[in-house]
């Protein structure tokens, strides 16, 4: 297990390193880093100072060293717009995105797995077909369009829920969160549903396909032949088997949820780091873009690592074969 962990962490570090090189090349090699990293409105003195600090006059490999060194110390540049360290600005926005992503994940798993299992147990029933039809829509319609429809229906036509913003927040474990105040919760519902819909559809399809597959297995028949209740067969024998692929996908998708939040946050004006990224792109605030990218890569790689570990804990076959390896 330890060997496996070490190897897996090594792979993750390699992935982060590879992305860092690509980002570095993107910024330093394709464009002129002086243009990219220095505020267009900076004075000549500023330009010289920054050029020296970043070592832009040095050879490329030395520049890369400085870039990594700075990145490891949390220095990913200073925002042109806010005049503060880029990483700090992003970390300010991180809780809002994480709250949105986690609530959306919770919704998509909490609703997606039961619906998917249901549809898998009765694939030809009306309910089963409806669930599948809905999931195809949720899967194929662009996220921003679904969000727009939600706003049109629930905010504009019905007027039940606010169309954007984060609402009132309150402190929870030292972070500002929305879901504990009524106003915040009403603001959270639509974006969270919007972000959840795509993943929910994915989980429904996956849970359904796996449920159908597992139900054909002899061990399910054997479990029924043992006289177990239908409920125990589904909740223990079926569910435990489908959890392995589902958890994998959920994990991989949590990473992409942080990325998909860019769209949802823009549609609902949710003040998270995704909205910050789009604003920064429009304002050409490149240090923030670079910092966002590095942080997101780190998050996604970390999540993938975590998922693999959970995966190996869930499936005894993998756990043991990896332990032997």
């Amino acid at each position, binding site marked *: 297990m330890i060997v496996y962990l070490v190897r897996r962490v090594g792979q993750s570090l390699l992935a982060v390193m590879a992305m860092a090189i690509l980002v570095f090349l993107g910024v330093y090699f394709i464009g002129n880093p002086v243009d990219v990293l220095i505020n267009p409105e900076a004075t000549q003195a500023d330009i010289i100072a920054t050029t020296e600090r970043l070592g832009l006059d040095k050879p490329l490999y030395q520049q890369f060293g400085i870039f990594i060194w700075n990145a490891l110390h949390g220095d990913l540049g200073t925002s042109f717009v806010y005049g503060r360290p880029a990483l700090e600005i992003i970390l300010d926005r991180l809780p809002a995105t994480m709250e949105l992503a986690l609530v959306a994940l919770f919704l998509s798993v909490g609703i997606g797995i039961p619906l998917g299992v249901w549809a898998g147990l009765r694939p030809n029933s009306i309910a089963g077909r409806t669930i599948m039809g809905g999931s195809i829509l949720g899967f194929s319609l662009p996220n921003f369009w679904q969000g727009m429809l939600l706003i049109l229906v629930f905010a504009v036509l019905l007027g039940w829920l606010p169309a954007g913003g984060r609402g009132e927040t309150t402190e929870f474990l030292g972070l500002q969160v929305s879901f504990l105040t009524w106003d915040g919760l009403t603001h959270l519902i639509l974006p969270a549903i919007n972000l959840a819909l795509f993943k929910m559809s994915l989980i429904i399809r996956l849970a359904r396909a796996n449920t159908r597959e597992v139900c054909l297995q002899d061990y399910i028949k*054997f479990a029924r032949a043992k*006289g177990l209740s239908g409920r125990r067969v589904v909740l223990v024998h079926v569910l435990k088997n489908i959890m392995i692929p589902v958890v994998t996908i959920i994990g991989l998708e949590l990473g992409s949820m942080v990325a998909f939040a860019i769209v949802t946050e823009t549609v609902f004006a949710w003040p998270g780091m995704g909205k910050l990224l789009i604003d920064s792109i429009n304002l050409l605030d490149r240090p923030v873009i670079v910092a966002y990218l590095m942080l997101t890569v780190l998050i996604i790689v970390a999540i993938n690592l975590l998922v693999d570990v959970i995966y190996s804990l869930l499936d005894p076959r993998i756990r043991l074969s990896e332990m032997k390896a």
Partner: protein
Amino acid sequence: MTKLLDVRDLQTHFLTRDGVAKAVDGVSFSLDKGQILGLVGESGSGKSVTGFSILGLVDPPGRVTGGQIVFDGDDLVAGGEPMLRHLRGKRIAMIFQDPMMTLNPVLRIDTQMVETVRAHEKVSRAEALRRSREALVQVGISSPDERLQSYPHQFSGGMRQRVAIAIALLHKPDLIIADEPTTALDVTIQAQILSEVQELCVKSGTALIWITHDLAVVSSLADRLAVMYAGRIIEEGPTAEVIANPRHPYTRGLIDSVPQGKRHGAMLTQIKGMTPSLLNLPQGCKFAPRCPRADDACLVEPSLAPAGADRSVRCVHPHDEPPGKVLAP
């Protein structure tokens, strides 16, 4: 003395897109307490579906469409799921063909055994574990405590089948339905399991339906034989008599195609043709197209009629002479 199990005119049909497949079509047989019945046939003959029908475990699109299955006085077809739930695993247990597939790969053995005990009796987990251990010892598994903590993939095939048998024995059932339980195992393990099951059944008075395609396996085990072809029983009777003097041409063909170790160089006979598709069965006797004795009279399907003491056969032209004469070419 009342029968333990009495199956009458059982019909199990599969409604597929291409038509109705009558996998079991009018099967009747009965079983006394402690008796061992061998249900023999090729794949697709409906022998496994018959077994699953008794426990109500036929997968859709198949379902029991007619007949009665009377177990200890109760009709299981009429009783349906609620009645079956309480019988499954408790009074009627089942053992499956492939031991690799019958145990849930992600659950530990103890979980799978304890849940079986507790599905029928309100006992503590400790008590359920104690019984599980006992059952494992009974089927010859050493160091049961360690085994209980393992996952199925850590076991060999024979070992897994032993665990499956132990699970079937947990509630000391009146009847065990074994669906080709040794087919997937090595020959030596096969023999071990066979004799163990026989011993356990005799000791505890458990009746057994042994479903197999292998006449050799079942002839040493079963009290009675029922031979199935295309969803019907075509011959039924005491094992020794059926083997020694098969009346139906199909049974005879089956026996002749078993290699006889003693006579080196003897030619094996084979049954011509293939089992018919259930969706496209011939008119009249279903075996007629492959039968050397068939004629126009076989275009009307014969019924399963008594043929001698305690035997019955479904044939217009049954054999009546002892087979020895015919066997010699």
